């Protein structure tokens, strides 16, 4: 793809969606737009850009949609959910033992795979959570995506990405060719439409915030601004989980990475140490000594 074409796409996406593509996101453009080009019967990306310049608003909308819609799997990237099970929950079970309640926010909940993966994690450790009130709030920009999440209905293809077969059997029921996550898990997740660019202080405070693969779309200033507001909505000893390609480094001092726990962050002013041995009843705790903050 030629630099002028790249620049054209970059500017157009920024104007239409706030999506900010840095110069190194060529692969992202190719992986998202080549299928679209083929579907439109075009030879490749130069032809696609040509067609966009031709001024078809509907086609431009398709391009923006393809670039901003995030693919999502159950237990996507695995590691964040291991952190949740092995680091976050053991610690919060101790820290919140008095009030026995937890609030978790999926800030880019998309079609539900992430909040429901967390719900399944919680179900798997339900013995340790007897008498607890755990709230999962899933928000997303798109009302349509939230509708899908609420319904909790997935295609055969979707339930085969990232979801161990044992969990499919345990937590889903079959409706013809589709699969629906069970009602008790759906009841664990609240849904709400939300644009992260707008004020979200009314949501209250959270012990855990999953905010994965959404920051990559914003420019530096917007990222810093959102991190600042996340810091005000997270408990001082809470946990922030970012996507694999995301970081706070150079953007904010309000969150610090946790030693060897990739993608896991704590509020920067927290003096609460991270690791304590997990209670024996936790499933597969793998906690070892590690540094608090970094």
């Amino acid at each position, binding site marked *: 793809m030629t630099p002028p074409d790249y620049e054209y796409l970059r500017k157009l996406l920024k104007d239409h969606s706030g999506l900010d593509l840095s110069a190194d996101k060529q692969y*992202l453009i190719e*992986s*998202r737009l080549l299928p679209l080009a083929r579907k439109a019967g075009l030879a490749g990306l130069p032809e696609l850009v040509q067609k966009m310049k031709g001024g078809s608003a509907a086609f431009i909308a398709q391009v923006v949609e393809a670039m901003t819609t*995030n*693919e999502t799997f159950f237990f*996507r*990237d*695995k*590691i964040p959910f291991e952190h949740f099970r092995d680091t976050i929950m053991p610690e919060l079970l101790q820290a919140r033992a008095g009030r026995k309640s937890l609030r978790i926010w999926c800030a880019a909940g998309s079609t539900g795979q992430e909040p429901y993966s967390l719900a399944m994690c919680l179900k798997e450790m339900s013995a340790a959570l007897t008498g607890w009130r755990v709230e999962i709030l899933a928000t997303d920009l798109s009302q349509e995506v939230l509708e899908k999440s609420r319904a909790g209905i997935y295609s*055969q*293809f979707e339930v*085969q*990405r*990232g979801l*161990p*077969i*044992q969990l*499919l*059997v345990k937590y889903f*029921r*079959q409706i013809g*060719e589709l699969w629906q996550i069970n009602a008790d898990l759906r009841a664990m997740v609240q849904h709400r439409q939300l644009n992260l660019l707008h004020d979200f202080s009314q949501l209250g405070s959270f012990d855990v915030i999953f905010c994965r*693969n959404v920051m*990559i779309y914003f420019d530096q200033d917007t990222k810093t601004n959102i991190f600042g507001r996340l810091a005000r909505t997270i408990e001082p000893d809470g946990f922030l989980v970012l*996507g*694999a*390609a995301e970081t706070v480094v150079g953007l904010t001092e309000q969150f610090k990475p946790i030693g060897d726990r990739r993608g896991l962050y704590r509020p920067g002013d927290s003096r609460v140490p991270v690791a304590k041995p997990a209670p024996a009843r936790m499933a597969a705790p793998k906690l070892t000594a590690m540094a608090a903050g970094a």
Partner: protein
Amino acid sequence: MKTCLVVDDSGVVRKIARRIIEELGFFIMEAEDGDQALEICKHALPTAVLLDWNMPVMDGYEFITHLRRLPGGDKPKVVFCTTENGMDHIARALAAGADEYIMKPFDKDIVADKFREVGLVEATSPQIA
């Protein structure tokens, strides 16, 4: 080298599966039915078995019940790969000792995901988008 026995009565499916699983770093053996597959396993147990359900002579379900009774037959990771996509079939397969279950049609991503799930291939670094 890790070995994978691909068991399916369709030559086309075996060919597609072979290509995908070879890319994951396996040496591939093929069988057209459960009986052929069992003979191969009695000779040398593979690391993994990709197993169709409906086949002539001996079906996949019967094969896995025999396999799991062989000496060391609990070792191979068995991944069903079948058009039988009902909850009842999946539950039966798991009860018989299957490790994972793929509902056809399948693609490379699904096979790689499922092989990763049961530890046959190492997790790659997470995708960015």
